[in-house]
């Protein structure tokens, strides 16, 4: 394998061209052989050089003739369907590359937008975004909110069947449930929710997946969700699990 990048143009220098031809022709014959052997398929190659009236042939004159016969016995449509020349082949490669580029660009845009969204959620201003950006951000927000809603629904549904028995157990003052609670679970009373409900929810899904350094207080009466958003992050203090999304919008 060469180290120099070859400019894809006719090699003007005769001796350079001749030696390149020799090497590359040899390489092509090797590759046809490998393809045929590895995949167990019929293949042939015919190469006419500007230096010789006689073509170089793989696997052999006879072998190539056999394969040509097999080829030409096929209906014309089948022959031409996957037939290419330089132009059509290059065009195919170009189309494919353009498609890959489009996809990659879309992918990157999505990743970028996701980053922007998270930045904005923690307080970065929107003033640097143009209409197209804002539009994409809106779309991403909608999509993500749908996913979040879906997940919330899933988690709430999962507990429902047990609801009645647990609620009854709590109502009778049994403490068996408390004994089941993993230590250090954060309890957040949702607005308009019965305490037991949130207990159950937390029990089902809340596990120690939270990154280290986050507060894991025991059950307490919490402020309603909304005000949490305005309080500051105070991990590990009095048990307020408060992660803020300060929504100050700098007026650009």
């Amino acid at each position, binding site marked *: 394998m060469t180290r120099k990048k070859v400019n*894809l*143009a*006719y090699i003007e220098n005769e001796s350079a061209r001749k030696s*390149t031809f020799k090497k*590359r022709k040899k390489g*092509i014959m090797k*590759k*046809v*052989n*490998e*393809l045929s*052997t*590895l*995949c167990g*398929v019929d*293949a042939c*190659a015919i*190469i*006419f050089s500007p230096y010789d009236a006689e073509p170089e*042939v793989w696997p052999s004159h006879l072998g190539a003739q056999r394969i*040509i016969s097999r080829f030409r016995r*096929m209906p014309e449509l*089948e*022959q031409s369907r*996957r037939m290419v*020349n*330089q*132009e059509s*082949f290059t065009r195919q*490669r*170009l189309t494919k*590359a353009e498609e*890959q*580029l489009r996809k*990659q660009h879309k992918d*990157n845009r999505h990743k*970028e937008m*996701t*980053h922007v969204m*998270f930045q*904005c*959620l923690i307080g*970065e201003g*929107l003033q*640097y*975004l*143009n*209409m*197209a950006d*804002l*539009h994409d951000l*809106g779309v991403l*927000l909608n999509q*993500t909110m749908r996913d979040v809603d879906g997940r919330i629904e899933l988690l709430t549904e999962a507990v429902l069947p047990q609801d009645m028995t647990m609620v009854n157990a709590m109502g009778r003052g049994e403490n068996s449930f408390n004994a089941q609670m993993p230590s250090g679970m954060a309890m957040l009373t949702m607005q308009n929710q019965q305490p037991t409900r949130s207990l159950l929810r937390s029990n089902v*899904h809340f596990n120690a997946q*939270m990154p280290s350094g986050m507060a894991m207080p025991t059950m307490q009466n919490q402020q309603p*969700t909304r005000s949490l958003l305005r309080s500051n992050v105070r991990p590990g203090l009095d048990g307020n699990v408060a*992660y803020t*999304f300060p*929504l100050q919008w700098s007026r650009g």
Partner: protein
Amino acid sequence: MARKSKGRQKIEITRMSKESNRLVTFSKRRSGLFKKASELCTLCGAEIAIIVFSPGQKAFSFGHPCVDTIVDRFLSRNPQPNSGSLQLVEAHRNANVRELNLQLTETLDTLEAEKKKGEELNKMRKDSRDKCWWEAPISELGLQQLEQLKVAMEDLKKNVVKQGEKIQMEESNPSRFFAAGSSSMGGHVGGGPHDVKVSGLGLFMTPHGYTLGYGHGFF
């Protein structure tokens, strides 16, 4: 860092045992073979025909200038004289190929750059995920985290809409909204709507609507 594939491995040249591998290998190597043939034609002025049958018995062929002329030439052993009109067609095709190759190289380079960018973005995301719980995948979040996230996002959405409306208003009423004393346009005050858009709001407008300067402005 987990690699996607093992990279180049030396393999034994014998018929592959797994059919799925055979099919994939055929596809890739056929494409590579045609590419090499095409290069040989361009670099050295060779004329080539290659015929391969796929494991599915389909016939793939590459030919320069064309499969049939080369095959006929081979079978009949008559060197074809190049007539004038043929040469003209040839020259035209070659010019097309040159042009296509230029576009192809450019596209491949851009693709490479975008892939690299994608990997950087991935790394960035991964790094921030470890620090910020709200960036973790939704499936890993607890219920109250989700509720918090949801509220924050609803708020952000409202602001996005507001900001969008603000921009649209300013675009249609430029004279009322330019920032006084803004010097980013060299002391331009007033002027056309275009000036106001840029100087008053600090927006980065590009033909495609993507903010080029955006990435640097935020972090």
